[in-house]
């Protein structure tokens, strides 16, 4: 992988992490691919919709209902966002 691509991937990765941290109100360090929906009190169904809204807005996309349901971890969220051509 070219250096620049790797860099941009990292940027996007960090952007998504930051959105998660901001919306859930937890430190960025606590967010890794294994962080699961409903595994911490901060990430409940209400926060989940807030996350979707934030992701929609930040990347100017509209995540489909089915993907909202599938977004069961931070890792999964990144995977889903690829579908919407959010460069990763």
């Amino acid at each position: 992988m070219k250096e620049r691509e790797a860099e941009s991937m990292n940027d996007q990765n960090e952007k998504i992490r930051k959105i998660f941290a901001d919306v859930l109100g937890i430190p960025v360090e606590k967010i890794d691919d294994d962080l699961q929906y409903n595994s911490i009190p901060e990430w409940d169904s209400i926060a989940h919709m807030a996350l979707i809204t934030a992701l929609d807005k930040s990347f100017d996309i509209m995540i489909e209902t089915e993907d909202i349901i599938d977004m069961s971890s931070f890792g999964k969220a990144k995977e889903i966002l690829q579908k919407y051509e959010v460069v990763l």
Partner: protein
Amino acid sequence: MNLERFFQEEPFAWGADEKNGILSDALWKLTEKHRKACEMYRRILEALPNGTFNSKRIDQVPTLPIGLFKRYDLKSVSPKAVVRVLTSSGTTSQTVSRIFLDKETSVLQTKALTCIMRSFIGPKRLPMILVDSQNVLERKDSMNARGAGLVGLSLFGRDHFYMLDESMRVRWEELGAFLKEHAGEKILIFGFTSMIWQYFLEEARAGKRDISVRNGLLVHGGGWKKLQSLGISNDEFKKAIRNQFQIEQIHNFYGMAEQVGSIFMECERGYLHVPNCSDIIIRDGRSLEALRNRKKGIIQVLSVLPQSYPGHSLLTEDEGMIEGEDDCRCGRKGKYFQVLGRLPQVELRGCSDVYAYGESH
């Protein structure tokens, strides 16, 4: 339990021949599962007359009165597996139902709801107005049916706008701005029936507010009991909403905290429809015998969703009548029915009545 087949097809695609075998199988398996996993449920079943368990018929699946969930903590999973305790609304002195959801059940509920809602509103998330106050969502430890309904339906919307402020007054200015921003778009409006009536319609009438939501698609439910006590029928509700806001598409739904997800949606012909993953039986109030179509009786609701609590077959406290099966003029298959009211001598209860009685759970 693998229930994927219930959600793979259109939720109203199965005719009786196709549905009954699959549904009966799933419901009896659930009965067995809960019998093994829930001590209280097992004891209740043991107290029932013999012979019941050799049957494969849906109308023989043991049924619990819905009120049991108010008195007992019925669950089929360990406390550690519980991801959410859902509480039904309660009014006056009575206690509320407590429904224990594990991850599996909660996922199934969302799947069923998505499947049903999408067949009515389409695949795209719509700009959404919630006729409620965002404050309802503030308590995180346990959620009442009203909050769960709001969050659950939020999945089908975007740019969510809670149109009531914390003192349940309409935010008229923001509402106007929202409608302007989404002019020409289809807008999803969701709320509980009595709240829409009391806090939106009556306020608009009193303040002579001309708000038109021609492209609106209104989904409402949960509060018809309150309206019934005011003598307002579903038809009158629709007419009033159409007159005031020009909303053409209006769908009532019937559902309960004890079986979240498998809701019954009102079709274009005005009937509530039973989706693939659930069933309705009307029973005689005295003998509890299953009644034929077009006979009034107590509504029994069956659903394949409840995995973590024995709530897959419940006798409600509502009166209803099945109109027919597989032949509604709207084109949907399955049973279609009407809810006629509350059985006499049971306390008033409906998720959206909570606020009216000044208490939230």
